[in-house]
């Protein structure tokens, strides 16, 4: 049995269902909305597992599901060494979001990461502590800033309402996922120029350990090339 993990609610679930339907596999959530169970039609030997998108990376790595739909951002943030455990089978063309760095738009002297590095140095000298960047994507942001040799900052954890941290003076900048940037602008924040830390979209992932004829047949059923070369 191939266990297929799909986000359990909202637009991400609906768009995932539509993506599979376009490929002849009909996924449905069971009649009662409170039950996270579902059915699979159009293919044999596949079971639907509805999960929070955030848990899908871990479930794939643990081998409790063979295939799963989740954001590339969540896989990269939550699974160190993810390529050793997971295969990125197919980007699905929805759920687009960028992980970006944003600063107060009143900082007219801050447009690039180099500006931020320079401001962080001044800020630390003036305030006696490191410039705070609020985020929940600790690993991705830290790796990005390390790769660009930005020092003099610290991350502060923010699991929600991250855009409000600057006005509340619990952070000087933020790193968060955004799709349109509207929330950022509404909170007086501006995205730094240059490529985002990560461009994420909903993606079909497979557990590397699940590679074999059964998953290969299912992937070909979806019109994909199987896992050869992945």
């Amino acid at each position, binding site marked *: 049995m191939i266990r297929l993990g799909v986000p359990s609610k909202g637009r991400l679930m609906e768009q995932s269902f539509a993506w599979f339907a376009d490929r002849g596999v009909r996924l449905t959530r069971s009649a009662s909305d409170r039950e996270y169970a579902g059915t699979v039609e159009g293919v044999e030997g596949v079971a639907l597992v509805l999960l929070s998108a955030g848990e899908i990376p871990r479930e794939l790595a643990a081998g409790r599901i063979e295939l799963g739909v989740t954001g590339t951002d969540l896989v990269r943030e939550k699974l160190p*060494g*993810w390529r050793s455990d997971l295969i990125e089978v197919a980007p699905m063309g929805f759920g687009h979001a960028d992980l970006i760095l944003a600063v*107060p738009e*009143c900082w*007219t002297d801050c447009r690039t990461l180099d500006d931020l590095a320079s401001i962080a140095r001044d*800020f630390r000298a003036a305030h006696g502590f490191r410039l705070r960047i609020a985020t929940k994507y600790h690993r991705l942001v830290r790796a990005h800033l*390390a790769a660009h040799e930005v020092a003099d900052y610290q991350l502060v954890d923010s699991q929600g309402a991250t855009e409000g941290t600057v006005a509340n003076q619990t952070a000087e900048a933020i790193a968060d996922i955004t799709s349109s940037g509207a929330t950022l602008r509404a909170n007086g924040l501006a995205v730094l120029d240059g490529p985002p830390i990560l461009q994420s979209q909903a993606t079909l992932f497979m557990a590397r350990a699940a590679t074999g004829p059964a998953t290969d047949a299912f992937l070909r059923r979806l019109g994909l090339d199987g896992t050869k070369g992945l």
Partner: protein
Amino acid sequence: MIPKRDKQDVGQRLLAAFRAAGAAEIAPDILLPAESLLDLYGEDIRARAYVTTDPIRGEMMLRPDFTVPVVQAHMQGGAEPARYCYLGEVFRKQDMGETRPAHPRDSEYLQAGFELFSRDAAADAEVFALFHGLLAPYGATSETGDMGLLLDAVRALPLTAPRRDALLHHIWRPGRFQRLMERFAVPGVARQFPPEPDGWSGLRDRAEMVARIARLRADAAVPPLPAIWMERLTRLLALRGPVPEVTASLRRLAEDWPGIAEAAQRIEARFARIARLGVDPAGIVFDASHGRATMEYYDGFTFSFRAGPDEWPPVASGGRYDALTRVLGKGRAIPAVGGIIRPGLLAEMEAAA
């Protein structure tokens, strides 16, 4: 796999040698307050150290190195000169990136260390010769450097104070340092700043931004650093070879760059002392960029010893860290030099021999 007991045995032998060299043994805590380590090392340490929380003491770290607790212990009542030694585990996470390495590094391993708090210039030679003597039987090769040389070199460049300070600040970040140098080597471009929106948000206040904009405007009018200095700096950073060769090159470089003459003399005097302690400088490599890629930590003499397979980390490393003691001492600096040896790696070499 080498039993931990065997690694401990090697560690105890090193500890005995450090004691024989006049060091008092100390045993710092394993759980350390995270705040001073974070303030010192920044976010990099979070990627490397295990962080845990205590309901009363707050955020704690499993000891990622001994230097900070040893300096703190010394500051609470040690007199100079003082020699300390220790043996114990350090804990380092390996943040592995996208692919799990086939042979992950140890996340806990022993360090045997020796730290010498002394203003005396002979201290560098004493520590190096001690380590050299202990590691020679393992066929270890040594590389050395001097961050003070690079800091002096930058201070002596014909630059404005803001440019000089920016370079000094980023000396441990080679890519950023290089980009700054390249920017200073060409005429500045006056930057246009967009009009300020209404309102202000956040803790960084407007005056801070105004001051930075003024600095950027003034900087755009600064004439470029003459190309000859870029060449000299590039030549200096690339200096690498056996000590006698490099010290000769340094002497020549110092003829056109008087600001590094003192550092060059200091380096020669250090190796002369090392030679008097019985180590031939011709067998030691000096690399002017040694120590730049480590955490912001060493600001003077640096050294590392390699032995065993190429992919191994250095079996020993150390150096002078006066600036670190200045930060921990809130302005009161205690010149200090020291280093660590990894007994586990030596035990593996002994087992393989």
